[in-house]
């Protein structure tokens, strides 16, 4: 089985290549179905391949594809262990659904096949990332998903906004990659290889705390770039310029979780550095709160979800920072379900409202598009952490672990709790604004339920959002057992033991969720001026939130503008005048000497004679005196 794992990557890749060259000859839906089939195929294969782990006992396997850069011990090798298996399942599973959804969503786009080409390429890249058996190959996938996100965000290149957003995404990611690269340099210089197997076994023995901290922090920088954490989260909201399926797949379900995966994968290194753990957790918690607060005040339906994603990713970082890796991965999975659902729902809404994204111009859509409405309601509750939906279990496990870790982490637990409340609030706000109340949309809009090809994925995801959490309840820790082999060499943080404790914590978080939800429901249930008044009541805070704390302008003023100045200075104040000037200066000096000496050749023979005699005298004197 294992030796055929490459098929998982190969299928979507083949799809991409095929569509790239022949896609334009296929009629519209066909290419979409082809792409979906490719991903679905990998999913099926992955399920089959993952079976051994479900029985348990089976441990990790590596498959060498071919040598890549032997000099730095970097080869193309696949590592097949529960963690990668789970990631593959998420990616392919959710990916498949989103592919299907996109067939409906992208209907009528003249670059339909191109879209699926990129989508398939992304799937392949993401699978490369999660299946990588060493950091080099992980970096390969890491960068390729970045490329795909660049291509897909900028898919509508003719519009004004997408291209800069795409560039921003890639560049900001690159800043993170810089950290990751440096981390890899240190890793290589420490271990003489980049392959997991070579590193993790020896990490405990050969890595000093200092180095481990450095690597940990650098990896965190990389992860923060990919997973949109403070301070590098700014690209994700802009990334919403891409088509909604892209937002769902890349910027909610899969790619953005790569950072979490990286840290979880590197558990063995974080194991050695508490500082790194604390930093990761803190960054996560703060991001969660920060993004949630911004999400409160957004009007754009996708922006809300974007910041919500950032916030949820913060939870995952909190988890892995707390070394509650299973909780982190667990939340990763559930989040993939409901956030994908939310995005697809939003997509369906936008589709119905013919590309209207401002929630102020919506409302009362529930009657028009019930399936979308109710599925999104489920998702909202799920993310709000209402039991027994998926989000509740995963989020609760995270908070519990943080609480159990104690010390500084209890503070983070509080933040998490507050965030839970905010999450519930803004999600409910969104749902209510969109689906309840009286219609606020313009006359020319005629919202209608989306076709089955789009609603089908919604339903499936809704189901998953409901039941998805049950695979790892305190009552049955299936997932944890499943993942154990991947984390056997590290000590993992678990929620506090005992029912009472669990009840208390769960109660608190549920309470927070309910409170937020209720507040939002009551506020936004009332007619427009009512909740408008409520929002203005919070000024200027609300404005600041709506403006996302104006971080973009600050970055622009503090980093971009000065950098631009520096570059211009280097080009036009240093390179041309100084360096090139010096070169031309030398030439000019030589010519100058020539021009200066020319008049000495006066043309008067007697001057020449004088020169001749002078020369003679010099030579003679030099000869005689020199001897």
């Amino acid at each position, binding site marked *: 089985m294992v030796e055929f794992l490459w098929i998982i990557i190969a299928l979507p890749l083949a799809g991409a290549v095929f569509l790239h060259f022949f896609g334009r000859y296929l009629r519209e839906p066909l290419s979409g179905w082809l792409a979906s089939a490719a991903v679905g195929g990998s999913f099926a294969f992955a399920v089959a391949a993952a079976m051994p782990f479900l029985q348990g006992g089976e441990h990790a396997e590596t498959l060498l594809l071919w040598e890549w850069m032997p000099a730095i011990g970097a080869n193309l090798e696949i590592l097949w262990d529960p963690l990668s298996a789970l990631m593959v399942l998420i990616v392919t599973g959710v990916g498949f659904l989103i592919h299907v959804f996109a067939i409906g969503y992208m209907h009528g786009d003249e670059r339909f096949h191109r879209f699926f080409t990129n989508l398939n390429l992304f799937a392949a890249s993401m699978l490369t990332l999660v299946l990588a058996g060493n950091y080099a190959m992980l970096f390969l996938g890491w960068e390729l998903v970045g490329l795909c996100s660049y291509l897909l965000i900028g898919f509508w290149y003719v519009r004004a906004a997408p291209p800069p957003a795409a560039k921003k995404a890639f560049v900001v990611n690159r800043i993170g990659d810089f950290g990751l690269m440096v981390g890899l340099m240190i890793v290589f210089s420490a271990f003489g290889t980049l392959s997991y197997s070579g590193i993790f076994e020896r990490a405990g023995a050969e890595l000093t705390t200092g180095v481990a901290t450095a690597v940990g922090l650098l990896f965190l920088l990389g992860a923060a770039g990919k997973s949109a954490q403070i301070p590098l989260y700014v690209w994700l909201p802009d990334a919403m310029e891409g088509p909604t399926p892209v937002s769902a797949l890349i910027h909610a379900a899969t790619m953005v979780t790569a950072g979490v995966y990286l840290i979880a994968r590197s558990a063995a290194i974080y194991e050695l550095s508490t500082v790194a753990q604390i930093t990761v957790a803190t960054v996560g918690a703060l991001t969660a709160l920060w993004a949630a607060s911004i999400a409160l005040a957004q009007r754009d339906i996708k922006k809300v979800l974007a910041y919500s994603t950032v916030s949820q990713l913060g939870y995952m970082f909190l988890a892995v920072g707390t070394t509650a890796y299973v909780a982190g991965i667990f939340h990763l999975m559930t989040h993939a379900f409901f956030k994908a659902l939310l995005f697809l729902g939003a997509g369906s809404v936008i589709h119905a409202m013919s590309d209207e994204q401002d929630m102020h111009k919506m409302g009362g859509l529930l009657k028009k598009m019930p399936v979308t409405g109710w599925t999104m309601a489920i998702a909202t509750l799920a993310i709000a952490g209402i039991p027994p939906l998926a989000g509740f279990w995963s989020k609760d496990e995270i908070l519990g672990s943080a609480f159990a870790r104690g010390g500084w982490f209890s503070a983070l637990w509080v933040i998490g709790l507050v965030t839970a409340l905010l999450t519930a609030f803004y999600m409910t706000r969104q749902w209510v604004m969109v689906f309840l109340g009286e219609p606020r949309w313009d006359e020319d809009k005629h919202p209608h339920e989306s076709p089955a090809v789009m609603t089908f994925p919604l339903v499936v995801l809704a189901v998953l959002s409901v039941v998805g959490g049950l695979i790892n309840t305190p009552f049955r820790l299936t997932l944890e057992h499943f993942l154990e082999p991947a984390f056997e060499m590290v000590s993992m943080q678990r929620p506090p033991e005992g029912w009472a404790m669990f009840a208390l914590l769960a109660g608190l978080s549920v309470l927070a969720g309910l409170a937020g939800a209720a507040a939002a429901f009551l506020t936004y249930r009332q007619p427009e001026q009512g909740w408008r008044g409520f929002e203005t009541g919070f000024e200027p805070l609300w404005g600041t939130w709506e403006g996302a704390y104006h971080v973009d302008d600050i970055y622009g003023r503090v980093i971009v503008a000065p950098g631009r100045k520096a570059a211009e200075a280097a080009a036009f104040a240093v390179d041309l005048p100084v360096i090139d000037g010096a070169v031309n200066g030398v030439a000019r000096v030589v010519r100058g000497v020539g021009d200066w000496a020319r008049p000495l050749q*006066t043309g008067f023979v*007697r*001057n020449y004679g*004088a020169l001749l*005699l*002078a020369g003679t*005298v010099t030579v003679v004197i030099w000869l*005689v005196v020199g001897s």
Partner: protein
Amino acid sequence: MAEAFLFVLMGIGALAGAVTVVIARNPIYSAIGLLGTLLSVAVLYVAQLAHLVAAVQIIVYAGAVLTLFLFVIMLIGVDKDENRDETLPYQRWIVVALAVVIVGFAAGVTLFGNFDWVPAATTTLPESTNGTIEAVAEPLFTDWVLAFEATALLLTIAAAGAIALAHYRRREV
């Protein structure tokens, strides 16, 4: 003693003539000055027993060469005197400076550089080098015969050159 007297007298004459050549404003006087120098030098040759050379000096130089000079001077015309003020900038200063340097150097070397004109090892009695015709002719036509022949080339060149330079003028002017 007599030689010393001759040397001083003719030396002064030669120098005077030379200076005249340089400073006389009219080429004629320069030519006369040159003549003076030539004659004085000739006498000095005699004083050093170079009789034949002295004779040739008188005949060739004072006779042929100088006559040629005078002829050309006449041809060109002697009416206008040359004014002495220097037209080239710095030229005169350069010349003065050079003169000072050279004289100073020569004086320095000859006086303080234990300078010998000729290696003491090789000097012997002067009487034997008596420049009679035989004495000069013998090496001239044995050891130096090739050089003597080469002078033929020299004269041919001179002739051909002079013709070449004068030739076309006739047609063009």
